């Protein structure tokens, strides 16, 4: 089999803010392992089925030191030596084929579990020749109408060992969202049937657990969803999209809504009106922080990927980027802040997975929609270079404001300027529209700024905090002690609850 790979660049991105005359300091290096462009691309004239590899990555899972990748046209490939220094040395092996649009991959013992449109399938290599010879139904039990938009995602394992699956809403011809279980997330039951747990999803294309084993999912801006949210996924809750309310009439629906929230009102009001309706742990404001969220991947504990261990990375389709999310628990519920992290990837970022060495593998495909990355697919690897970027490491809510932890000590003078530090807060309208504008924006006065002795913790006392509003912080004036400005001087905190004093 002929395979051609082209290495685009081996470039550092997230160059840190520079003081005059300084060399760019690179915290994360991005290596493009494989990017679309070769003539064996399956959309070129020369391509024949079986020739080459269209690596439109839709799922990633590690089998020891080997990396399994599912691709959208229905194959699973194994990268035998993904950590090879020279990308040209990478060896790919076809493991499974003929699948129906796989969009997720997980390891289970020696097997792989892969999502297809109509089921989760266990791929087994029973004779040990390195190729799957059993395609066993692991889980089914949801309706597949034949509508293209009715995707299935997962499985993804939580801390208790449950395997979570999410089911996209259909859209357009043949769509039927009133039959089980469109718009639902659930787990693989012991009987091999999908067990619905939570509903009101639209396009839940990313799943991932944090270090505590709690499951999260991303949704995408669209009908009923004003911007991209990251939700804590757990049983018995409603995430707001009403298109699949009809599924509640199914006798197997695990819960009912005490009331259907009324549309065309501010989001906080709608949330307060129905107890099952939960807010996202974090909103990723549209355009300000991408447009279509995809995968969730937790940064492993420790410093292997910089000072952000335990935080979540969130893939971004349209802007070919990765965002970072810090979460904390207030009154037992997750909430937190999101920050821009990495961008400039060659195609839409769809899947993220940390390798055994702590480097991040980024799987990409532009299929179906466009992205700023103009290649149709790709696989990249991001490695930490040992020097943390100057960034907000954590942002925590306080009863009267926020507490920011920086990766480097900051210059006390730079904290004083009014123009260099500002906050506003806003929310969205809850409506059936496709996406929604920010509404009810108010400025927050910053009354007090207290910098810790080590210069790394800044406590801001802020007026006019509003629960369930997104608080947008700009820190253009902040400088490190060595004069750098922040690599990303913006943060968006979703203040669902103000901590009690």
């Amino acid at each position, binding site marked *: 089999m002929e395979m051609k790979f082209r290495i685009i660049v081996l470039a550092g991105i997230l160059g840190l803010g520079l003081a005059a005359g300084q060399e760019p300091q690179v915290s994360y290096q991005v290596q493009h392992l494989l990017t679309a462009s070769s003539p064996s691309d399956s959309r070129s004239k020369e391509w024949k089925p079986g020739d080459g590899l269209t690596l439109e990555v839709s799922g990633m899972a590690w089998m020891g030191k080997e990396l399994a990748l599912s691709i959208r046209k229905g194959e699973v490939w194994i990268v035998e030596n993904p950590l090879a220094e020279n990308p040209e040395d990478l060896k790919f092996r076809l493991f499974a084929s003929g699948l129906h649009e796989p969009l997720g991959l997980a390891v289970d013992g020696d097997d792989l579990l892969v999502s297809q449109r109509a089921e989760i399938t266990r791929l087994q290599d029973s004779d040990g020749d390195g190729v799957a010879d059993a395609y066993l139904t692991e889980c089914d039990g949801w309706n597949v109408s034949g509508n293209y938009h009715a995707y299935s995602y997962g499985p993804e394992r939580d801390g208790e060992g449950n395997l979570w699956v999410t089911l996209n809403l259909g859209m357009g011809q043949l769509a039927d969202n009133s039959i089980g279980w469109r718009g639902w997330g659930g787990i693989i039951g012991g009987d091999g049937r999908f067990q619905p747990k939570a509903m009101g999803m639209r396009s839940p294309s990313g799943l991932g657990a944090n270090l505590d084993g709690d499951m999260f999912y991303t949704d995408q801006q669209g009908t009923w969803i004003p911007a991209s949210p990251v939700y804590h996924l757990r049983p018995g809750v409603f995430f707001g999209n009403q298109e699949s309310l009809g599924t509640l009439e199914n006798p197997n629906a695990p819960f009912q809504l005490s009331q259907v929230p009324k549309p065309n009102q501010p989001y906080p009001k709608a949330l307060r009106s129905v107890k099952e309706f939960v807010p996202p742990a974090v909103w990723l404001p549209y355009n300000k922080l991408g447009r279509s969220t995809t995968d969730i991947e937790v940064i492993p504990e420790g410093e292997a990927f910089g000072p952000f261990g335990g935080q979540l990375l969130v893939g971004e389709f349209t802007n070919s980027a990765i965002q970072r999310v810090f979460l904390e628990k207030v009154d037992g519920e997750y909430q937190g802040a999101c920050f821009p992290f990495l961008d400039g990837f060659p195609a839409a970022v769809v899947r993220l997975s940390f390798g055994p060495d702590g480097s991040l593998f980024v799987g990409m495909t532009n299929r179906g*929609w466009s992205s700023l990355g103009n290649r149709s697919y790709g696989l990249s690897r991001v490695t930490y270079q040992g020097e943390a970027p100057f960034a907000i490491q954590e942002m925590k809510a306080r009863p009267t404001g926020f507490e920011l932890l920086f990766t480097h000590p900051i210059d006390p003078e730079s904290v004083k300027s009014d123009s260099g530090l500002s906050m506003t807060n806003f929310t969205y309208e809850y409506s059936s529209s496709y996406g929604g504008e920010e509404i009810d924006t108010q400025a927050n006065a910053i009354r007090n700024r207290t910098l810790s002795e080590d210069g790394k913790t800044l406590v801001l006392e802020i007026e006019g905090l509003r629960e369930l509003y997104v608080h947008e912080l700009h820190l253009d004036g902040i400088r490190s002690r060595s004069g750098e400005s922040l690599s990303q001087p913006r943060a968006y905190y979703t203040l669902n609850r103000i901590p009690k004093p």
Partner: protein
Amino acid sequence: MPAGMMELGKKSTGLRPRTNPVPSEIRTNGLFRKGSTRFFRSPLGSAAWLVLVIGVCLWAKIPVFSQPHVAGYERFHADEASVEGGAILFSELGCASCHGGSDMIVPRQGPALTNLSSRVDRDWVRSFLKTPESGRKGSTMPSLVHGLSDEEIDGVVDYLGSLGKGLKFRAERHANAERGSALYHEKGCIACHEPTDDFRGPRARGDQFESEFAIAHPELTKKTSLAALHHFLMQPSAFRPDGRMPHFALEKQEAMDIAAHLMDFQPSDPREAVTLKPWPKADASSIELGKAVVQKQNCAACHSLPGIEASTPFPLDATERATGCLSREKEEGVPFYPLSEGQRASLLLFLSREDRSSHDELSFAAMNCVACHERDGRGGPSPETDPYFVGMESLGDSGRIPPPLTGVGHKLLPDAMKHVFTGLEGSRVRSYLKTQMPVYGQHSEVLTKWLQEEDSRVETHSDPLDAEPSGDSIGAGQKLLGIHGGVNCITCHQWDQKDSLGIPALDISRLDQRLRYDWFHEYLLNPASYRPGTLMPPLWPGGNSTVPDVLEGNAEKQIGAIWAFIAKGEGIPEGFPDRSGGQFELVPTDQPIIQRTFFNQTGTKAILVGFPGKVHLAYDGAKGKPSLIWRGGFFDAYDTWFTRAAPFGDPLGEDTRLFEGETGERRFLGYRLDREGNPTFLLRVGDQKLEDHFEVSDGILKRVLRWDSGEEPAVGHPKGVEKTIRRKDGLLEVEYRWK
């Protein structure tokens, strides 16, 4: 709730358009109809409340109070008296027809009155003349016949009935009110009119619709007949020349179905519909009397009447206050309008101006273009009508909401714009919008000229075609449009006859024939600034190219090159898959090929097995049964692998045979492949485990079924092939041969 019944101090929260927020203090100003709350809360008011509520209930169909309804005024100016509101009313209530002094782009005219006796019920006409607002709630027709004798009124009716030679309606054979309802609710009628209560759309429920801006229909079954309404809907501009009820280019059947819906005509044969009661033959003397009245009342100022000239417009005395046509009481010989206090105040404000020229934007409101289109932050669907705008959901709101018109005169070339107004074929580029742009044929010149002048501006980007673009530039444009190192335009956009690779955004192969380059250039740099929420990404974020290796990564040059290729290039952008030569045909050679897909006659969990022996199988993974076999070519995987819309596939070969007789509930558990790649499907039937193995040799499909316990399961076979069956213990071997 009907629009005319909203005036009892109903809270207007949520009913006002988002784009026109009204501070609440204005709403309590006692001058306006909203302000009637204060009075109705007083003790005296409470009694009045009760009387009124009962009154309104009794008159549910025909409310007592009904001021003339002008959508553009109601939506933007009803909350506060304003010159602008007055200007709209002055035109739309026909004031200008007698008095002159309105400069709306398309002047208001009354409907045609010829052939009335073929189209409208005589009693309805008579009662409409006496109280126009009882014939149609919110009618803008003033009362003109108060003070006249019954004889004179009958004379007017007889005169009107004598106009025209009568119409013969073509007998239509089919009507479908249900389809008519779907068309009525999605074609854009709801932008101006109310939905029907029983309508259930993908995002809307008719019975939840409450809007103050909807234009009421008359009680159509009392006014007209199915055939006449059909005739009207086929050519509204022939009866309503001023475009306020715009002309739609409806198919004959569409018009009939919509008419059936509006008349609540459920049978399928329109010939069964009630026809109009023939008008009695009128005395010549009565007609003469009526004609004299019509002349005296100056009806010709608004309506085109044969042989009757309108009187010369007579200017108004600006010092007049609430008298004459503005009077609260009917005065003999003076048209009477049941104006609301707010309307009256607005008209007075307008009339007190010496310069009565109206702002150009008001024409948008007067003609209700704003019902569908936003312009300069104002208008577009209201929160109530928004759910009725449907189209291609995968394009977001751009796929269902008509485009904004901000700067449209800068965006569109004059000819392209005129073609949109005249409805020239091919001029409506957003085929995915269900809402249909009306035709403004006779107004197309004046509307085009107006918008082009209104939006003209100094252009900052010179058209690359002004100088002959180089071959290099055209070539770069071709690359940029494509997906091989370009900016991927064709991922979302159609190119001529070729579907995009992803979402079905509009055809960009002829943009140069529609757009000004200056607009195109600015739009590409920041699409969201023109249309917030568009799915179109900024491909040159911050003005920087994402493709550094084309034209030195220069954004200006790259955008120019794209334009140059669209205008001058030959060929197509790079990256459309070439489907010639069966490249996506899966051809099993040494091993079977398995592919899952959506497949006709099998379903959404089809597992296709192509054997090298040119005999192929489709297995239904949802039911756990084989569904069909065929010979020859196996399967073209193009749609499964690359088409975003995921259409259902079909066998590539011939001699398709369907399995029959395979019954009973089965649970599909997957399949295993043997060394040669032949599949064994794994099933469970109750407690029984069943294996269903297939392979092909010498053109014969061999099937082996094994079960672990119990009875032999029900096994079906394809119809129309020869089968040989051998039975052993817990085993069934079958061979299928084509006859």
